[in-house]
């Protein structure tokens, strides 16, 4: 059992233990889950220190046969891509627990237990190197989130939870079908083996097979991302979810989609990915602009932030499908950035909600007078979200747009409009909530941040500045991994099939790709 497996096991154990606790001991349950999540976070830092840069492939690997027939492995490991996403999950879970401290009033034990279950699933998703295992964790994550929204949500929680669940299930089922099809071809669920089979050309997909499989995987991930026009579950889920649910949903769960794109869609189906990049990027750009425009007119803060997520995640998809080193690096970096800054936005909106018991922008105004520090932390987060330099989002957006510009300048030109619009909607909201005269009913409900809230928000803000300034803490590991993925999808890798393999099906379309690639390399 290596560190990574301990990391997966501890939240699961914590979940079970929490379930066994007496219902009345709410304070103890909270402290216990907080302790567990902090322990997990501390352990996860061991991944960072233990991660050896410069090594290709996964690290902290443990690969044993789980079920021998069909060939399913317990295969976990991390690389530069999953490393930081796992850290992100473990970093945000304690914060999610802290912000729920006084927010959750009913069924306290179950709530905190579900947060640990969620963490377990998330770490598992990012660590899994077996398609079946990945799918299992993918679905495990769905369960606690469904309940978080469905039990502790706001008024329309059932509608939102069901919508969330169904949307995601539609995609997952397609992915499951694709996974099983891949299994029938490869005879194993082990991702590393499958990848090697595909890469060496021992399994040659024909064009139709590859496209269909790609689309099945892509759809599952695109719903999760969510990519326009599959996004409508997100605003509903966010608005109805409790703060911790929104936080985990926006910050980490959406990243499962983009992570899947990078981890599976690109390396397994490089040709289809490149062929379909055009319209996917167009959708991403529509999403960027559309999300921003719709965010601009939202009367509800959480909905606004939710639509802004649609816009931000559009950038990530654009970066992924730009097939450039900078674009991919930026996309991965932006996943983390979005996790931090949008997470912080939800945390802060949660603070406002706890004070005023409303999410409508019109119910606020003049908060800056009553709670200046709340206003300042919100401002910093807002600025991070709209991509102000020296804060985190800027780096990601810069890399993505630069990468997209290398691929096709027009993409960048349109996507950059989103940067203008993001300033519009965030600042308008900020103005309406924090500025202006302070009305009496706001005044009496607006205490300054308390110690617990400080403890939630300060780590996030520190991370915003850190990720904005010292990108070299994070980027090298990411770059190594993305470089490998990129190499795998590069036209050159596809033209040369392995010796003696029937790779005719692969060779044909790759000629076109090679041409396109030359243009990109300009």
């Amino acid at each position, binding site marked *: 059992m290596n560190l990574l497996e301990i990391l997966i096991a501890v939240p699961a154990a914590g979940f079970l233990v929490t379930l066994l606790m007496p219902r009345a001991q709410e304070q103890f349950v909270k402290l216990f889950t907080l302790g567990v999540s902090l322990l997990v976070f501390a352990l996860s830092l061991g991944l960072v220190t233990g991660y050896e840069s410069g090594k290709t492939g996964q690290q902290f690997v443990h690969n044993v046969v789980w079920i021998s027939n069909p060939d399913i492995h317990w295969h976990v490991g991390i690389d530069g891509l999953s490393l930081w996403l796992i850290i992100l999950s473990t970093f945000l879970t304690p914060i999610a627990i802290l912000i729920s401290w006084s927010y959750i009033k009913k069924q306290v034990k179950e709530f905190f237990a579900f947060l640990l279950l969620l963490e377990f699933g998330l770490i598992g998703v990012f660590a899994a190197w077996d398609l079946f295992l990945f799918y299992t964790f993918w679905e495990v994550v769905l369960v606690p989130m469904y309940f978080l929204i469905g039990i502790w949500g706001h008024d329309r929680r059932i509608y939102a939870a069901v919508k969330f669940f169904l949307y995601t299930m539609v995609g997952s089922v397609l992915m499951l079908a694709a996974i099983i099809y891949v299994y029938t071809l490869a005879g194993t669920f082990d991702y590393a083996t499958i990848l090697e089979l595909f890469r060496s050309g021992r399994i040659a997909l024909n064009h139709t097979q590859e496209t269909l499989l790609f689309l099945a995987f892509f759809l599952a991930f695109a719903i999760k991302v969510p990519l326009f026009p599959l996004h*409508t579950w997100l605003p509903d889920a966010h608005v109805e979810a409790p703060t911790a649910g929104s936080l985990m949903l926006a910050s980490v769960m959406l990243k499962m989609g983009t992570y899947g794109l990078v981890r599976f869609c690109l390396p397994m189906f490089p040709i289809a990915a490149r062929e379909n990049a055009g319209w996917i990027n167009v959708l991403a750009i529509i999403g960027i602009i559309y999300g921003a425009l719709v965010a601009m007119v939202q009367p509800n803060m959480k909905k606004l932030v939710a639509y802004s997520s649609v816009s931000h995640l559009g950038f990530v998809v654009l970066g992924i499908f730009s097939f450039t080193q900078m674009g991919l690096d930026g996309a991965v970096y932006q996943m983390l950035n979005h996790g931090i800054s949008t997470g912080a936005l939800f945390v802060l909106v949660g603070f406002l909600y706890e004070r005023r018991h409303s999410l409508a922008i019109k119910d606020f105004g003049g908060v800056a007078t009553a709670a200046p520090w709340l206003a300042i932390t919100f401002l910093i987060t807002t600025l991070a979200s709209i991509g102000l330099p020296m804060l985190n989002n800027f780096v990601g957006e810069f890399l993505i747009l630069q*990468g997209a510009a290398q691929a096709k300048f027009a993409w960048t030109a349109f996507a950059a409009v989103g940067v203008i619009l993001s300033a519009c909607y965030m600042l308008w909201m900020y103005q309406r909530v924090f500025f202006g005269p302070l009305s009496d009913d706001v005044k009496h409900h607006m205490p300054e941040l308390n110690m617990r809230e400080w403890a939630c928000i300060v780590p996030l803000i520190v991370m915003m500045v850190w990720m904005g300034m010292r990108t070299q803490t994070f980027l090298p590991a990411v770059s190594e991994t993305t470089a490998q993925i990129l190499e795998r999808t590069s036209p050159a890798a596809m033209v040369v099939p392995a010796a003696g393999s029937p790779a005719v099906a692969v060779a044909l379309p790759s000629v076109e790709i090679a041409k396109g690639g030359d243009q990109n390399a300009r």
Partner: protein
Amino acid sequence: MRTLWIIPALPFVGFLINGIFGRKLSKALVSLIAVLSVVLSFAMVMKVFLEAGNLATSPVHEHYFTWIKSGGFSIGWDYAVDKLTMIMLMVVTGIGSLIHIYATGYMEHEEGYYRFFAYLNLFMFFMLNLVLAGNYLLLFVGWEGVGLCSYLLIGFYFVKDSATTAGNKAFIVNRVGDFGFSLAMFLIAITFGSLDFTKVMPAAAGKPTATLTTIALLLIVGACGKSAQFPLYVWLPDAMEGPTPVSALIHAATMVTAGVYMCTRSAPIFIHAPVAMDTIAMIGLFTAVFAATIGLTQYDIKKVFAYSTVSQLGYMFLGVGVGAFSAGVWHLMTHAFFKALLFLGAGSVIHACHGEQDMRHMGGLKKYAPWTCLVLACASLAIAGFPFTSGFFSKDAILGAAYAHAPWMYWVGVVTAGMTAFYVWRAFWMTFWGDYKGHGHPHESSWVMLGPLVVLAVLSIAGGFLFNVPEILSGMFPIKEAAENGGPGEAVLTGISVAFGLAGVGLSYLMYVVNKDIPEKITSALGGIYTLVYNKYFVDEAYDAAIVRPLIQGSESALWKIVDAGVIDGVVNGAGTQSQGLGSMLRLLQSGNIRSYATWVVIGAVVVIVAIGVGGVK
């Protein structure tokens, strides 16, 4: 030893201390920290200047750490100082120091004192970062950062709706400009493979003109946003909602000139893109005239100076556009002196009149505030281009270059100079001559405020020949500047522009001191045209009607309500409804009757057995 980082770091430390602990500190301590950080920064600039040796041959370049690195592309946190940067550094820290001192007096009775100085220090940090930047991305950091501070300071009185709206407007309009700038940056990175000035500039000559023109045009979009050029100037007049020292520092002396600085910095690119050069000259010239005409009609003293700033920035761009980069920078510097002075003087006037900004409620202040009157006279002379004041030299250099480029530009410029002189002096007469028409008793400002004014007054008068920028920068820009070799009849050209300036001053004296009925008559004679100009050509309203409203309403009604809730959710929910329909049909099979279920089971069993039998089980 690497020392450049200290220059921006000092104000940043000031920002941190005031920002975090300011509320608990006394006002005196807050102002001490704020002022000291900037003054020390100025001292540091001087130290660098004295120790650096010849900046033309050996610019200082310091690398601190790799900021962003991806693949083969890497951006460092680099500071560099050459002569251009040095001039900017001195202007920024010098005027910054003066305005900080002034502000300790001006803001004395305001709430949020510490907040003001924290923002101001943060602004200094970003501005210094902007001018010290060794690559485009770092310049962009400062570029966005100053925009942020501008936003914060315009909205300083955040309880006032107009202030926060103006702040938003400034930020968002600037974002439009930044959009252009960032696209230019991406294109530069693709074309040159780097964003470092030291790598981009020498390579510019070898790149295709079309690419360079695109880059330059996009840079112009950025510059137009930051430096308030047409059509993106709309935010600057509104920015006067901020406290007056802010208007002086950010919206007159330093930040708004960043566009000029950036274009000058990118001179090697511009030089190889003649179309872009012409564009920038035209934009500059048009903005200069356009804003000047609006300035003629305004009554709010700060608005007058704001349009004047827009107009003068237009001049700088004209200079840049006709190839006289150093003249542009010269005007940038002298403008910083006299426009900062104008604003600070205006602040002193507003202070004297208890917050009144409408000139129709002022008048006769020379009695009550003689020092303010004197320093404002210096500034007004300088902006009118009175011979041997600072404005005279720089404006003359630009107009000379414009004549060499295209004579009609010169003539338009000269007419604008006349208008400038007219409206600035109009403001001067209305404020200081005649009888006091406001409320309360006007009073002179304290010496904390007057001190910096006097220093600036000296600079406004003498700044032109004290710092001959074209001489300092000679050789820095590769093309020969028309202004320096002197056009035919240089003296004549100078004479004409001075004459126009003096005529403007004289006319305003005639209209606002000697015979005060003339303005009325002209106004009624012009009728509609006056209304048009007085309302700033309805540009704000046009933007509102053409862009803002359609965007918001379209987003709300079309995108959100129809596309999102209607089409997408409609399809999704429609799929749900269809399934429900199918389900309710299938539900009929579920009669709830156990025996009928049993019958189904039997039928199913028969079917399965037949299937197995047909399939032939081995």
